């Protein structure tokens, strides 16, 4: 076995820099979110989220060191083991876990609490990468596809059983990885299309407009291409499916969804109907962000994001604080940071020499992308409220550590990408 070499020269420092900037900005905004001018607390005050987040950040740095010290082959070798342990812990949480905020996802060790589900993301990413990266793996094999969906299905089911729908939905992000690795886009397109039509159905008051719109799109598509007959057949089926989705919306909302989920959907469509009730989150969140203007009200100067006008102020709705205190410019910086990070991760994934590392990289990108899209989307009223954190910004130890592990395993693999060939 070769000795551990110095990998500092091969680390992707750009990603590390973006990570650090995000973590620090997150910390400052958590402070702003819990800051009370009457009391004027210190940012280091451990009774506040900001003080505790600093400790979480410090622990992250220790975790990073540990990840970088461990031999890179460990992550591939131990993928199944890690996956198994995390799943076991999650089942354990179901049995002996604590309930926090309606979700039974917390494991308590004395005064410490942890959410194993945050770690299920990287465990699943490792195991998915391992399976797809195994020799002779073919994506078009149905058995393989079933295995992959089972791999993301298990943690999803357990998390759903913990009543944490938001985190469970994150695992659908793997579809993007499968797509990159050759799975038919059909599933992805159907999935996204269904969601879009579902929301459109809710937003457009009169269904006839919707049918009209879809009809026009169909006609244009049919006229535009060749092989008209085949297209007509396919699109007719498509149209019928769309109609089915549209017709099912009411049924799904009223019979499948739980009341609080129904409310979140209603809040998305018409937040003004009950601004102090179910529309509260979205209304307050939009007021906060919207009142930020171009350059914001200034650090700690926000009025709407204080005292939990917006609930989950320092966790899921942290973007409100950024939007209010730093305005459109601040939003631009944060969105820009995320898009840069995502593109960088895709770039890193693409430059890997083996499939395991590449698939893992895409998994990381997909998970971050999902969090980024859903979290910011919900705070500005583009998606229904789904309680998932904004990576590196939201308050919380488990989440921060989970994202840190995800990212830095990739950076570790990337730093050793030259060795992979030697190994083969």
């Amino acid at each position, binding site marked *: 076995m070769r000795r551990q070499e110095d990998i500092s020269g091969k680390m992707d420092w750009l990603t590390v820099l973006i990570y650090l900037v995000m973590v620090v900005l997150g910390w400052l905004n958590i402070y702003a979110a819990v800051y*009370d001018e*009457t*009391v*004027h607390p210190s940012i280091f005050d451990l009774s506040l989220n900001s003080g505790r987040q600093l400790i979480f950040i410090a622990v992250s740095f220790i975790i990073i060191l540990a990840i970088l010290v461990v031999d890179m082959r460990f992550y591939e070798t131990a993928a199944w083991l890690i996956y198994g342990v995390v799943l076991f812990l999650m089942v354990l949480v179901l049995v002996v876990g604590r309930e926090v905020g309606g979700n039974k996802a917390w494991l308590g060790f004395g005064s410490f609490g942890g959410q194993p589900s945050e770690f299920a993301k990287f465990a699943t990413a490792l195991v998915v990468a391992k399976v797809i990266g195994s020799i002779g793996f073919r994506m078009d094999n149905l058995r393989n596809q079933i295995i992959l969906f089972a791999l993301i299905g298990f943690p999803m089911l357990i998390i759903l059983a913990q009543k944490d729908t938001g985190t469970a939905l994150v695992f659908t992000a793997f579809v*993007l990885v499968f*797509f*990159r*690795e*050759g799975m038919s*886009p059909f599933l992805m397109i159907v999935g996204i299309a269904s969601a879009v039509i579902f929301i459109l159905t809710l937003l457009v008051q009169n269904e006839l407009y919707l049918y009209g719109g879809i009809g026009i799109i169909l006609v244009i598509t049919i006229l535009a291409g060749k092989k008209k007959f085949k297209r007509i057949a396919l699109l007719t089926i498509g149209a019928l499916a769309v109609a089915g989705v549209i017709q099912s919306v009411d049924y799904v909302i009223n019979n499948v969804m739980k009341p609080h989920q129904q409310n979140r959907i209603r809040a998305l469509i018409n937040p003004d109907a009950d601004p*102090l009730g179910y529309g509260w989150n979205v209304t307050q969140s*939009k*007021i*906060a*962000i*919207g*009142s*930020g*203007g*171009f350059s914001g009200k200034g650090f700690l100067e926000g*009025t*709407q994001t204080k*005292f*939990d*006008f917006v609930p989950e102020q320092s966790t899921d709705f942290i973007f409100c604080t950024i*939007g209010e205190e730093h*305005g*459109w410019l601040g*939003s*631009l910086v944060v*969105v*820009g940071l*995320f*898009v840069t990070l*995502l*593109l960088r991760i*895709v770039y890193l994934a*693409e430059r890997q020499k083996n499939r395991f590392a590449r698939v893992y990289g*895409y998994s990381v*990108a997909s998970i971050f*992308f999902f969090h*980024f*899209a859903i979290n*910011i*989307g919900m705070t*500005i*009223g*583009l998606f229904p409220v789904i309680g998932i954190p904004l990576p590196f910004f939201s308050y919380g130890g488990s989440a921060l550590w989970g994202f840190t592990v995800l990212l830095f395993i990739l950076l570790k693999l990337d730093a050793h990408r030259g060795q992979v060939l030697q190994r083969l």
Partner: protein
Amino acid sequence: MNEGRKEIIRALMVLTGVIFLVKLFFIQILDDRYAQLADSNSILKEVEYPFRGLIYDRNGKLLVYNSPEYDLLIVKKEIGSFDSAAFCSVFDLSREELRIKFKELRARKEYSPVKPTLFIRQLSNYDFAKIQEHIDEFPGFYIQPRTTRDYTTGSLANALGYVSEISKTQLEKDSTKLYRQGDYIGQSGIEAQYEHVLRGKRGVRYKLRNVSGIEKGSFKNGEFDTLSVPGHDLVTTIDLDLQEYGERLLKGKVGSLVAIEPSTGEILSMISGPSYDPTLLTGRKFSSNFMLVSSDTTKPLFTRPLMAMYPPGSIFKIVQTLIGLQEGVLHYDTRFPCDRTVVNCHNHPNPCDLHMAVQYSCNPYFHQAFRRIINQNKSPNTFIDSRIGLENWHDYVSRFGLGKPLGVDLPSEKGGQMPGSALYNRIYGEGRWKFSTIYSLAIGQGEMLITPVQMANLAAIMANKGYYFTPHLVKEIRGSNQLPAVVKHETGIDAKYFTFVQDAMSDAIYGTAQRAVIPGIELCGKTGTAQNPHGYDHSVFMAFAPKEDPKIAIAVYVENAGWGGRAAASIASLMIERYLTGEVKRLALQDYVLKGEFLDKVVLTTPSTE
């Protein structure tokens, strides 16, 4: 074929970012509806001021409490049609005063038309009763209850200190960031020293309001409200009965009185004369009264027991005695003639041994004794020898708690002055002073200054035979353990020498302070008369009692009252009687003190110390 898909994924990411930024552009920049909604301030924040901690005396008697007062707040934006005539009559203002109020309001830095801002401060309970029924007629005005300090006693003002609105400079210097403009803060005495435990924690209540400003109950069922936390109560070491009695005795006189419980260092009484009525510096009349009190030529705000520095006079002879004995340069049978060529004296048996010298307070004796302490022939050069001697002596007096602040738990305690070689080098030049330059120190005069609390502490050291506990005023912070431990300080002088000096002090009463004798109580004391180049001499007396198992050590300093055996000894003696027996039987002496005519013109022409 999959290579192209990475571009799709990238495009998806960029597209999402762009969609977000466009949407954000719409709600943040193009749509000003949200900014207006934010401004509509649908949640009203009400500050709940905490109760400041109460202050008790050592026997649990309440000294300081809080009484309600009310601030009138204004939210300018909510004022619709405003009947200024009705307003003026309800609030007892003239039109001109009202106009000034509004002008002041707009000038205030934190002024905002949508936030509640202070309009009229400190309405009394009486005013409030009158206003309460009319307040609904003036939308946009709110009553904010808070409290002001009130006192059960007219005494102890200097030790308690006062509370007032935080000043601009204090706000700027405040590192805790707990205070805001308009907040009250302890400005002196215990109120300032224990501000951090007395102040408590401010609470906040959030109330929902609709667009027209009508309250719709608490915000989210009070989930985010915080209750105010009252400050901690303090139990002081003060004996209120003794304190009030002492202030009565000292009334009309300028001076200080400090009484300490020797076994604990607890200050039983601390009197500064003249003082002021603490109730003057509370409530709405604070500003005008403060002007009055602070410009008073008798300086009632000056805390004499801690800040006034006097030459100790003859009481310092007992310190010299102890140092001489410990150094081995004086012995019980050491005799010196009463040679009045350098310092003057008064008539007493001659020559004295050490006991008699203390008893009769012989000046020439201590002149000789001090020479022995300073010049021990450690160096053939008399200048160097004097320096060595003085430095050694300075070490001793420092251990008596002299020449530096004792660490009393009140702000701005002074340390007095015990001259060392550095001071004389500065005055005369290095190697240019010797014993004959500094001999005034022998009898507590010269460059020597001590504070009344140091004198009382000296009495406590005598009572304890060689040690003292840092004198302090607060013995308990209820519900907190933040009280610093009381430190025991040793003088390093043998207890047997103290026993010897105690005997001499006991006899001294009969020699120089007949008035101090209390039938049935053995009292040890020492008089002093400090020369005052600016006027009549100061009267000094320190004592403790009873001699066996002392319960009280006391020092009294009365300015311009002549002999220590008269004013100071009488007051101290009455205080001791009152404290030990609970009553005063020597009414004639009490009348003598209350009358306060201690000077007879004949005495005045007799110079020097007793």
